[in-house]
């Protein structure tokens, strides 16, 4: 990591607690949703073929994604704020590369997502869930969740921030992240999804493949096949989205 990247990562990390509303509201609803949904849909665990007798175990990977996918958008809100306040342009008058500015923010927010996703997993454990792949698997799950958040919603919201330069426009798109996760087997198995049309949508949603790898880590252990598919999805989406983001980032030079 370059010295500039570390300095800019540190800047964002130091400032995270200074905006407690962002820090709290980006994880509190997920924790509440986790508990409420867990209680509401708990009965599905009694249906034949359900893979675990603890519904929180089944729900935990989706709750991690619900933290990391919308949560990464706070990085884009920070970017839009820096553009709106002109601070980004101030940074660009210094000997700092655009790559360092981007990496600094992503590393800081990636760290935040790790901590927030970890809080979700700790809550799941407190509610009786067990992570079959242990601590290493839990960390891998958080990594997959954070990377997927970056290459999907992170890319989308960063480009929105660069185009609109408006933090409110970025915040307005937050609910779309939940749609991305709801259209998966986050809450029930594929067999329990009533509509064939919905099953077809789920089968083409890349989130489903990432979720499956994370669920395998929770319920069965290290399934390198599903983990490989998840990373292939992440790399594929990254190859499309990141160059576009870098190109748009360069457009701040008028």
């Amino acid at each position, binding site marked *: 990591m370059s010295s500039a990247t570390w300095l800019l990562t540190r800047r964002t990390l130091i400032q995270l607690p*200074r905006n407690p509303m962002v820090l709290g509201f980006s994880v509190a609803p997920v924790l509440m949703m986790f508990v409420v949904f867990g209680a509401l849909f708990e009965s599905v665990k009694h249906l034949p073929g359900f893979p675990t007798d603890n519904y929180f175990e089944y729900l935990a990977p989706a709750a991690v994604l619900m933290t990391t996918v919308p949560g990464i958008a706070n990085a884009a809100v920070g970017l839009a704020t820096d553009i709106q306040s002109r601070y980004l342009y101030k940074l660009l*008058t210094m000997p*700092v590369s655009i790559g360092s500015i981007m990496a600094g923010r992503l590393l800081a927010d990636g760290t935040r997502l790790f901590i927030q996703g970890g809080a979700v997993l700790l809550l799941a454990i407190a509610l009786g869930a067990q992570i079959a792949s242990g601590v290493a698997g839990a960390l891998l799950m958080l990594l997959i969740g954070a990377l997927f958040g970056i290459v999907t919603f992170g890319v989308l919201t960063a480009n929105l921030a660069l185009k609109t330069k408006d933090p409110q426009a970025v915040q307005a798109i937050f609910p779309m992240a939940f749609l991305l996760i709801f259209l998966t087997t986050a809450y029930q198995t594929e067999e329990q999804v009533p509509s064939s049309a919905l099953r077809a949508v789920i089968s083409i949603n890349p989130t489903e493949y990432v979720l499956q790898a994370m669920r395998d880590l929770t319920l069965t252990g290290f399934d390198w096949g599903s983990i490989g598919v998840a990373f292939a999805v992440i790399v594929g989406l990254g190859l499309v989205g990141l160059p576009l983001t870098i190109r748009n980032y360069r457009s701040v030079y008028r």
Partner: protein
Amino acid sequence: MHDDRIRELIGSSSRGPSGAGVDDAIVVDDLAKRYPNGTEAVRGVSFRVLTGEVFGLLGPNGAGKSTTMGMLGTLVRPTGGRATVAGHDVVEAPRQVRRSLGFAMQEVGVDDLATGTELLILHGRLHGLSRREAARRAGLLLELVGIGDAARRRMGDYSGGMKRRVDLASALIHLPPVLFLDEPTEGLDPHGRAAIWAALDRLKAELGMTILMTTHFMEEADRLCDRIAIVDHGRIVVEGTPEELKGQIGAADVVTLEDVYLNSTGRELEVAA
């Protein structure tokens, strides 16, 4: 500002801020900017700024002053001509230009969640200073611009004038040979404007820094600048020292820069409040 503080600041530097190593700190040759929508913001501007000189780009809003400065500061890509700052080409060597440059911007770019001290230390470190040296200079500079008491408060609580002074201090943290000031007193009350003028007087006298500034205030240009270029519609219409420019009109008993501007362009300019 206090002279002894400035001397203390210079004493900590291994090279003087005026040490750009070139006679012409800024060379601009037929520089142009045409935006994709067809707007020609700058239409072939040429000028030179000698090392240690204060050079003003004077003109109304929209004349092309800030775009010219943006191109020289590597924030805006030129579409024609070339320019060097401290001997470095702004297109081919933007990083070297940024190392040689302090840039206080028209729309102040500060980080509201950071304190004044944190901002200056970060900027110093991004310019390659050690943490200790960056912290030392941050303390001196914030005192110099009158932010000492508020240095540990977050800048979200600062007034516009305080943010502008912090921005000026941050532009000086690495003691650059060249300083860009884009409308340095725009939006300030007379007290704030006087404070900035006093600060610039000291910088010029003590550091011998090369300063390029834009302004649309006649009084400011007359007081601070060694030479002036009046810009209108993206072109330089007249250039010289304030006295030379006034001498070109000459007939009236008392000639001001505003008279020069009106004579050159036929357009009114704002007068400092």
